[in-house]
């Protein structure tokens, strides 16, 4: 090896030696992952929530497959409590891309009697976060998806840091953290047993800041809620929640109108806003680079339940 490489270093001069920037190396890795899935699995889907991570996935899919069509549809699991701005964005983006969008509604799962509604306007802190899992699993079964791309990143959470890029789910959609397939080099083993599906995370190795820097470099369009805007919010358990038909102020809570933006996009009932005046991508990148609190810690109530909340939900079939 020493000899071979010695030749390499002396033989090649010029720009080729310089190597890729971090973002372009991560991009290249993600494109490779997406093409592997398209080539080796029968019926993939891309989970598109209208959030920033899945917006990045769409750009990566364009880079992987254009000028061809995406070899998969887009899928959104809609809790029924989403931001209107995000749903509008979702529909517009899918139409612009000319790709198929499948919307799986938690409300339909509830109406079919397959789950009880976790959301009760009278009960503080209730949400349909748990119910999403059933709707997703039903959607996977109905369309016989064998692979679902997701925008989760390993920097988000401790359990995520342990999860493979190809994450196998059993018949019940569950993840077994102690029995993961080794993942070596860039060789992914996509073979499934019957009933299994695989969740694939092409941007596993990206951080929140990488995502924002990539969005800025690519000039990707985002839903307006990611940028500072005035909104009626209430303070609850240290978080700022948007007042909406699904989240009304409790007694003793005051409604404030603040300049806020969102770091993540999710169900209105569990996603907190942050106070901010960042109105451009550059402002947001600067804020994220300077933040002292993680994305999930600051804005996702569902991860605060216990030390292993994310691991527990993944074991049950959550994304």
């Amino acid at each position, binding site marked *: 090896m020493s000899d071979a490489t010695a030749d390499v270093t002396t033989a090649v001069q010029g720009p080729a030696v310089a190597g890729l920037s971090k973002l372009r190396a991560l991009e290249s890795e993600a494109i490779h992952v997406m093409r592997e899935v398209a080539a080796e699995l029968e019926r993939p889907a891309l989970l598109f929530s209208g959030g920033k991570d899945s917006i990045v996935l769409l750009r990566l899919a364009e880079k992987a497959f254009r000028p061809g069509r995406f070899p998969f549809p887009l899928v959104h699991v809609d809790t029924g409590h989403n931001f209107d701005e995000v749903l509008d964005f979702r529909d517009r983006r899918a139409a612009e891309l000319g790709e198929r969008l499948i919307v799986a509604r938690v409300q339909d799962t509830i109406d079919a009697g397959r789950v009880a509604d976790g959301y009760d306007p009278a009960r503080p802190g209730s949400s349909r976060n748990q119910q999403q899992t059933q709707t997703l699993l039903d959607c996977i079964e109905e369309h016989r998806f064998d692979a679902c791309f997701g925008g989760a990143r390993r920097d988000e959470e401790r359990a995520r840091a342990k999860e493979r890029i190809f994450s196998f789910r059993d018949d019940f959609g569950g993840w077994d953290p102690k029995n993961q397939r080794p993942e070596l080099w860039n060789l992914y083993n996509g073979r499934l047993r019957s009933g299994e599906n695989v969740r694939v995370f092409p941007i596993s190795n990206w951080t929140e800041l990488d995502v924002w820097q990539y969005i800025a470099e690519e000039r990707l369009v985002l839903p307006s809620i990611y940028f500072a805007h005035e909104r009626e919010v209430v303070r609850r358990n240290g978080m700022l929640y948007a007042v909406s038909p699904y989240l009304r102020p409790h007694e003793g809570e005051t409604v404030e109108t603040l300049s806020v933006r969102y770091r993540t996009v999710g169900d209105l009932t569990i996603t907190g806003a942050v106070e901010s005046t960042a109105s451009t991508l550059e402002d947001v*990148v600067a804020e994220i680079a300077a933040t002292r609190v993680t994305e999930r810690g600051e804005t996702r109530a569902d991860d605060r339940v216990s030390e292993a909340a994310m691991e527990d939900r993944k074991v049950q079939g959550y994304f």
Partner: protein
Amino acid sequence: MTTATTPHAGPVAATADLLRVATAGSVDDGKSTLIGRLLYDSKQVLVDQLEQVQEASVRRHGAGAVDLSLLTDGLRAEREQGITIDVAYRYFTTGDRSFILADTPGHVQYTRNMVTGASTADLVIVLVDARQGVIEQTRRHTFIASLLGIRHVTFAVNKMDLVDWDEERFRAIEAETTRIAAQLGIPDIHVIPISALEGTNVVDRGDVPGWYPEDADHPTLLRHLQTVQVASDRNLTDVRFPVQWVIRPGGAVGRDGVRAADADLHDYRGYAGQVAGGVLRPGDEVQVLPSGVRTRIARIETFDGDLDEATAPMSVTVHLQDDVDVSRGDVLVGAGDDAAALCRREFEADVCWMSDRPLRPGQRLLLKHTTTTTVAKVDAVLDRLDLHTLDRVAPDAAGGLELNDIGRIRLRVKRPLVADPYDVDRTTGAFILVDEGTNDTVAGGMIR
């Protein structure tokens, strides 16, 4: 990529690069503490994460100390047992360089996890306990790093505070680790004294004695990681482009059908993939293997426009001048390369066996190599590595390999592989073996 064809030149990403690091070391050498220290002192631990760790530290150890190892052990079982079971990936950045850190477990029964973590690493940090000095695990992990073609090994001699920063002690360990690494042919070795617990010489220098003077030759661990040069490790000589996916919007079949408005794409045929080696340039003559057909590169396309050249690990779409038959699994190689030598039906490889069910001669397995998956038969298990002495010894009594064994085997494959020795190209020299019955990945292999 030349500056002229770089599609984006964002303010941050233009200069930042990425270093992939794996850690290794025995179970109590303080790996998790070291990683916690790297993250903590480089200000990458955010307030809420730190609060969680503080709470958990108090629950476990009582008030007082913050157990930085709790930053990395993420799974319930790991917290219960206080050990690292599986590879965890951590991310931190120092402005001009970002790091992906594969935190691999130290137990000997997790050798397969170290192989997994090291398979993508540019550099391996081997932790050595200053009190214990070089032990079996040090040798083993250094050996595995060399087996996996790691060109940069950094020995972090930890717990120096517990030996009162004794220079003699450090020098002895330095001499021994250097000797082992040189013996294994690892070209770039550094030995750095640290105390992860106290945070000395990890990110901040702290109270390092004068025998490790503050100059360019005696960096802190982080400083070393920031400055080590790895770009020249890539194979820029041998053109290797495994075709991953054929983009044919005008094709009559498949899910890649043309959009009605794009009739001009009717004849479009692009070969998408990630460059594994060499430099691809438009106009270059190439051969398509295994068929051996020769043609030229017409264009190198990306979503952001055409490129003048492409190198590993760029994902691009290549167009060829002639209308030749190319599909997934084919590899474009240089025109002057010896096709017969590259197309292998039989070869020897070192494998790390990762399954509870032992490997036996005669066994049939699936083999995935670049973008080809084919059936392989194990003709023979030639030897097994004694992980204690690092000698190559005879296979076990049944003639095979057990879980976590590393050994050399001879394989035959149904479809020829377009492959290089691992030492020449880490991408075209690597493969995994898959059990057809369980679909489990049962081995990682390196072609010799």
